[in-house]
């Protein structure tokens, strides 16, 4: 069994109103050093071993987990015991 950690983030140039609101809240908590906040998603997949594991994870990300119009993704694969 593998644990796949998928990180989905907004592409550069795509406005992140949520991140902007969080940056303002941090600023009002006196964390003025935070210049920018970008919010993304973290998804864990527990996957049976598969010959084309990476290829299939790329496809999963392209088809559903991330929207390539606004988002990009990266992932890490590690062995998992369940």
């Amino acid at each position: 069994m593998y644990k796949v950690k998928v990180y989905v983030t907004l592409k550069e140039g795509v406005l992140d109103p949520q991140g902007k609101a969080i940056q303002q809240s941090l600023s009002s908590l006196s964390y003025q050093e935070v210049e920018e906040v970008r919010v993304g998603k973290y998804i864990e997949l527990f996957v049976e071993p598969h010959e084309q594991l990476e290829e299939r994870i790329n496809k999963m990300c392209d088809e559903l987990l991330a929207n390539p119009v606004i988002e990009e993704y990266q992932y890490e694969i590690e062995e998992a015991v369940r």
Partner: protein
Amino acid sequence: MKFAVIVFPGSNCDRDMLYAITDALQEEAHFVWHSESDLSSYDAILLPGGFSYGDYLRSGAMSSTSPVMKAVKAEVGKGKPVLGVCNGFQILLEAGLLPGAMLPNENLSFICRNIPLRVERQDTMFTSAFDEKEAITLPIAHGDGNYFCDDATYQSLVDNNQIVFTYPSNPNGSVHDIAGICNEQGNVLGMMPHPERAVEALLGSTDGLKIFQSILTNWREAHVLNT
């Protein structure tokens, strides 16, 4: 004319859509559950608003993988009119039937009110009952209505004349004030405003009815008058 109103788990404007067709337009309409895989007996397909699958992952993302969306794609290929409103628009974007994507509204608020709109294209099967550049009023009700596409996609929307509705006063941050777009063939329209909520004077506007009347008129011209 026979309309399909697709119902996803979490659709909530499906009944308004059915009512708009059966009572206001006085044509036939049926609910079709999202697990159905054949839409060939329908003349037009309506994807209603709502919060299908609770907007999990991204608005419209889950629904775009429903069996019925394969059937929708098949009917799009046959040139049938497909209209997606609000969540229906988001589903069309996620399914790749229209270009672009939705982001949360710029002000992060859910916006629910009547807004002015401009009809940019009057020569589509959805908008022929409007006047050229007509100013209309329709309700919006969305949290993720901030349409986004990159510059190259925007240029192709302009070049192919795919921008159908714009906001004269942008409520949600959409790029270039875009409120509704169609595909290159012109038989798929996605729009954030709700025409099905504006089909009776009692509800404040009948501007939405013209969209359904346009679909009907164009269908009759293409099918009934030729047979």
